[in-house]
């Protein structure tokens, strides 16, 4: 048991150092802008269909669930605001983070692990290319850039799902729904929660890159890196989210109202 705790602490330290090195290298030239752009497209644009579908579905489901409770308390008119605030404050950022950790985290883990075991990373190094900057820094930076954008997209798709559901069920006006949804929104409802997804992106990128970049043991190692990338980045994301929500409430007391 003691050995496992020590091992866990060692890995946590290694991941932390790995992430710090990557964040430091993001701001140090030469900048791999072309590769960062390619990774943003890979991570961001290819996640859009998944984010769109999930956002819409969550909006509809939330609307259906919320309606029953709110009608019972005579607060049906608050449904748009409740749905939108829930989506922007927490559901959008967290679900986007989890979806990206599943789709992108697994991909990064498997891709880098595959490159490691087939000596492609060694080949990059032997060609005089800094593999850490080229493979790791670019992916982490791309995750940090793509996550907030995807989150905003998820927020709006979720709101759209709620709108469609509400209009269909209650036959109310779409414009009235939009007015009610956003009238009570404050910037502190969406700025901090969107900004925290930069941290989610850094975490997903760092954990997945760490596991892939340091993979070993051939094909088994590739599979292991891929699976662990999803498991660890999802778990850490949820745990860090608790801390970030608490910090957000501390810095923006309006969020606790």
């Amino acid at each position, binding site marked *: 048991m003691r050995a496992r705790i020590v091992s866990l602490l060692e890995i946590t330290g290694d991941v932390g150092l790995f992430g710090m090195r990557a964040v430091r290298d993001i701001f140090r030239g030469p900048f791999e802008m072309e590769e960062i752009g390619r990774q943003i497209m890979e991570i961001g644009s290819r996640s859009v269909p998944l984010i769109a579908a999930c956002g819409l579905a969550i909006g509809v489901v939330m609307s259906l669930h919320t309606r029953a409770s709110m009608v019972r308390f005579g607060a049906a008119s608050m449904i748009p605001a409740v749905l939108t605030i829930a989506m922007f404050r927490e559901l959008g950022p967290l679900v986007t983070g989890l979806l990206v950790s599943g789709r992108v985290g697994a991909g990064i883990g498997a891709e880098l692990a*595959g490159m490691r075991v*087939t*000596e*492609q990373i*060694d*080949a*990059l*190094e*032997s*060609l*005089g*290319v*800094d593999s850490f900057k080229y493979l790791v820094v670019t992916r982490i930076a791309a995750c940090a850039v793509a996550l907030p954008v995807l989150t905003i997209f998820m927020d709006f798709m979720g709101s759209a799902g709620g709108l469609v559901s509400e209009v269909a069920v209650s036959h109310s006006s779409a414009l009235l729904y939009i007015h009610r949804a956003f009238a009570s929104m404050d910037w502190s409802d969406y700025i901090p929660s969107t900004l925290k997804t930069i941290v989610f992106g850094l975490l997903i990128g760092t954990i997945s890159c760490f596991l892939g970049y340091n993979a070993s043991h051939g094909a088994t190692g590739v599979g292991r890196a891929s699976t662990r990338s999803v498991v660890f980045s999802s778990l850490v994301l949820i745990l860090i989210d608790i801390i970030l929500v608490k910090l957000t409430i501390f810095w923006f007391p309006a969020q606790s109202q």
Partner: protein
Amino acid sequence: MTENSHTAIRVDHVSKAFEGRPVLDDVSFEIMSGEAFCILGKSGTGKSVTLKLMVGLLCPDQGQIFIGKDEVQKLDRPNLLRVRQTVGFMFQDGALFDSISVRENIAFPLRRHTDKSEEEIKGVVDGKLSEVGLKNDGEKMPSDLSGGMRKRVGLARALVLDPPVLLVDEPNSGLDPVTASEIYKLLADLKKKQHRTLVVVTHDAAGVRRFADRMGVLDEGRMIACGSQDELARSKDGLVRALLGQEEG
């Protein structure tokens, strides 16, 4: 061993262990510019590790390695990356970047390290593809290539920056004798026509005989013999004789 201005690579009392298991034990040798040096040995005797140590892909536990006058382990990161551009490395299975085509694999170092225009890059890549006998295969993806073709592309990529030194890891592994012979012929041409320094790691002494100036034999991490082909042929050591095909091992 004294410093020599014509020394391309110097390995000086190098030891390396993995998880407590010694792989190289106090290995020393020197390779001169323009020389073809072959490291022979059974599988798992530290041959590939030696090559990776030479370009700093691994760090020795003890000893020093010099590329020219640069001590590899003392170089900072930018200088290490600079020195690596002067040493081509042909990996055992090619180590091609599998997400880009053969042509892009070969063009990759040119795009990274030179200011050549797209037209110039195309010209150089076409030349390298012809040199390795793959002029019609540039648009293929690495997954569409046979083992021999992958090695040829790996060789073309290793040579595209015209490095004076080329390290070759097991050029014949996984290949039929005919294809292996073609790879050896390419290496022999590099030695003869371009006067590059070659360091070839293999267990196939017969294959490298046509171009090797000197050979070293590794056994359980130690360099048990080192010299010209004639000198090694006179060795009484059973493993050396077996690797040279002079008697059963």
